């Protein structure tokens, strides 16, 4: 046994682990409650999969998907104090950094912000020469006062020189131990959103450090010697040392992993994925093997960023949704018994009628004690089922991108309530291991590289620029650990810039490939 991959998903309720062999077969899986210290939960899940007979020494790569970073932002916990430095004066002074942040988060994170002369025009001219003397003074002021620094600069996705030079100057003042996040490495055009993401990234440095240490220590404790990775928002991997610098790239990895896992388990590349949990159902679209991304600005804990994140529709319907019969007929949800399903539901001996009870009464599933739901009125069962199905069908219809009937992949513990037929759905695919799709998504994640910047077509052909962009994306993917021979173009978007002469275009190019592992055959999943 060799080239075995371990995928771990730390969710709000459960920590899941799966082990896949070199050909991608699931060798073992485990589900255990998430613990406050995270490490214990991970260690327990690893214990369980190793107990199934997988030798620790066979594991050559371990991937972690985690919600710790997004939870830190949402709960305002464990965030670092950030010094925010923007290069762009005299431009941008009208809208200083952090003005659109919720006050509680700004008070916690944004200790000091500065706008310093520097930055570039769209065509590469300097807005102002970089004010190095001012930066040295800013460095002195920040020294000892902050846990991290976020640097942004106007048009840094086009020219990052000022950001890099400013980082070197600040580094001298604050010392090696203070992390500095650079906006051109974090986001794309749109200064405020890119800067916001960079500040959040800087604020998460301690969180990611702890997450990585928890993962490492659980791995080491089991005698596993493997390359370690974190999964990021787009369903691709980061090497651990890379992840330590870009924690913000993990914030949407949970739903992404479940969509990718569903794709993998079903073998489909284009489908709608329905992930039914205890309280909510997440519906996302799978396009070319990747989650479809949302178009509009995404707010993280109230902060606008320009991250591309999975376009998810969450509906209040799950296995634990409470079913009630009233004057206006039967209602399903939005309240749920949540994690108490295994004690509260009728079939598990409780007295709350849930969707899981309905699924059992309707003969869609065999769980618990079916005798406890035999007395339910057939009318009630039918109406509750129809209500849930209508919610699901509406959700699927909103997510799918074409009017033709699409395949639906049903994953998540609650997906037993999905019937074999739904309007607008060609086929319902229920893959094996559907209940661990997220950990599987982590285990099979690919490595990507992305380029997003403005190019001038003057004197160059469009083809040569596209080729150059692709090459830059390939290099980035290579640095992130991808096997160059397996890289594929997964996204290529061209946005002409209105009003500018010389045919300026913004290109967003992304490639992804399989992780380069020792002893692994090429092109294999």
């Amino acid at each position, binding site marked *: 046994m060799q080239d075995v991959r371990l995928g771990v998903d730390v969710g709000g309720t459960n920590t899941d682990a799966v082990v896949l062999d070199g050909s991608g077969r699931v060798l073992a899986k485990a589900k255990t409650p998430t613990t406050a210290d995270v490490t214990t939960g991970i260690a327990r899940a690893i214990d369980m999969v190793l107990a199934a007979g997988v030798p620790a020494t066979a594991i050559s790569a371990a991937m972690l998907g985690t919600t710790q970073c997004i939870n830190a932002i949402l709960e305002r916990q464990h965030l670092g104090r950030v010094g925010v430095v923007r290069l762009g004066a*005299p431009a941008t002074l009208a809208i200083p950094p952090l*003005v*659109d942040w919720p006050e509680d988060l700004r008070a916690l994170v944004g200790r000091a912000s500065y706008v310093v002369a520097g930055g570039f025009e*769209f*065509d590469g001219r300097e*807005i102002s020469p970089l004010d190095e003397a001012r930066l040295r003074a800013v460095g002195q002021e920040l020294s000892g006062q902050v846990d991290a620094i976020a640097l942004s600069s106007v*048009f840094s996705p086009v020219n990052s020189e000022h950001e890099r030079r400013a980082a070197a100057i600040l580094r001298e003042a604050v010392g090696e131990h203070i992390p500095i996040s650079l906006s051109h490495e974090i986001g794309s*055009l749109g200064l405020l959103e890119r800067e916001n993401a960079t500040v959040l990234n800087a604020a998460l440095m301690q969180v990611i450090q702890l997450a990585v240490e928890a993962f490492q220590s659980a791995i080491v404790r089991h005698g596993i010697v493997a390359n370690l990775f974190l999964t990021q928002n787009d369903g691709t991997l980061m090497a651990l040392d890379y992840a330590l610098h870009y924690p913000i790239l993990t914030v949407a990895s949970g739903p992404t992993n479940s969509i990718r896992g569903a794709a993998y388990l079903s073998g489909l590349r284009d489908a709608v994925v329905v992930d039914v949990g205890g309280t909510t159902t997440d519906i996302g679209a799978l396009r070319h093997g990747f989650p479809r991304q949302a178009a*509009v600005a995404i707010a993280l804990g109230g902060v606008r960023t320009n991250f591309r994140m999975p376009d998810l529709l969450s509906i209040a319907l799950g296995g634990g949704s409470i079913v009630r019969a009233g004057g206006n007929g039967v209602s399903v949800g939005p309240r749920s018994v949540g994690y108490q399903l295994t004690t509260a539901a009728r079939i598990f001996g409780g007295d709350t009628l849930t969707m899981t009870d309905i699924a059992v009464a309707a003969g869609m599933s065999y769980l618990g004690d079916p005798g406890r739901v035999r007395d339910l009125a057939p009318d009630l069962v039918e109406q509750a089922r129809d209500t849930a199905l209508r919610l699901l069908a509406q959700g699927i219809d909103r997510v799918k991108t074409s*009017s033709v009937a699409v395949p639906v992949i049903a994953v998540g513990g609650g997906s037993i309530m999905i019937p074999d037929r739904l309007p607008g759905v060609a086929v319902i695919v229920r893959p094996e291991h559907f209940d661990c799709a997220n950990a599987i998504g982590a285990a099979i994640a690919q490595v990507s590289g992305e380029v997003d910047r403005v190019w001038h077509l003057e004197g160059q052909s469009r083809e040569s620029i596209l080729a150059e962009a692709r090459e830059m994306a390939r290099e980035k993917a290579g640095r992130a650990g991808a096997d160059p021979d397996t890289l594929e173009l997964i996204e290529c978007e061209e946005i002409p810039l209105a009003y500018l002469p010389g045919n300026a275009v913004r290109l967003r190019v992304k490639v992804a490939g399989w992780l380069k592992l020792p002893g692994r055959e090429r092109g294999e999943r």
Partner: protein
Amino acid sequence: MSWTLTEQDLYDLTTGAGILGTGGGGNPYLGYLHVRELLRSGARITVMSASTLQETDLICPVGGIGAPTISIERLPNGGEYLGALRTVEAAWGRRVSHVSSIEIGGANALRPLVVAAQAGLPLVDGDGMGRAFPELQMCTFAIADLPITPIALQDVRGNSLLIQQVVNARWAEQIARAATVAMGGSAAMALFCLSAPDYRGTAITGTVSLAVRLGRVVRRARESHQDPLAAILALLPARHLFTGKVVDVERRTVRGFARGRVVLADGAQRIGIDFQNEYLIARDMQSGEALATVPDLICLVHPETGEPLTTEVLRYGSQVAAIAVAAPGPLKSPAALAMVGPQAFGYPDPYRPLPGDLRTAAAEERVA
């Protein structure tokens, strides 16, 4: 009639201006933040009805010119709008009494508020388009042949340019556009200073308060889980064209403009909407028949939130509701259609006006 702009009004104005931006006009969110900062630091902005203007008043439209994609990256200095106004005042040799929006659709709805806050000047409730358009000559002041000069442009550094004389507004557009590129792709602009009778005779009045009310009905519908689309249709002389999914977006650059077409589908039904920065013409894809044409407003919004959707954010698979709003009367005259009708944008289709007039909805000039 006059009223003081609150932070809530400002928020609603931003949403309303986004919808009236008909897919272009630039994202008003940054202008919202800029003005909100000014309000929070104590500035007070008064909006006055055009009916309150005195004969001796001088009204100066102020706005921005340039590429929206530049504006989201190279944010303003903050002083350029007031700088442009001062340059125009110097050329006139007199003080301006009121500022106005030249374009209520998109980012230019917010920019005169910056000057209003900084100079302590009232904003007149009106604009020169009742929507968004890509070029300077496409406004009611130019259609009425009022003098566009002196025009002042100012960039983020304080570079300032005064255009004293032009043959017509089209020339002004070309010269200003070239200067804007030299200034880094976006600039502040003051132009078309108007007397009170000229303003009253040519502006689309009441559009600032209309945009506030438009944003408000959308927000309230959202807050109370009502249908924002229905709320928009109840407020404006508008027709629901289509709700569907984006199944194709085609973009290309033609003479410096972002042109393209978005195709929406619902079952077998499809409509195509052509855009050149703004949405210009909506067609039934089966029959080829034009369902709505410029200068009527074609607005795309998210069907559940009422959030305006600009051409840049359209992506394959997005859910979109398309509505058409009757243009204000002054954009429908033969002289106006020569500047802003379908043929002015290169389409062979005749203008088939929707019933109604945006001015009917704007005439109320109230915010409450």
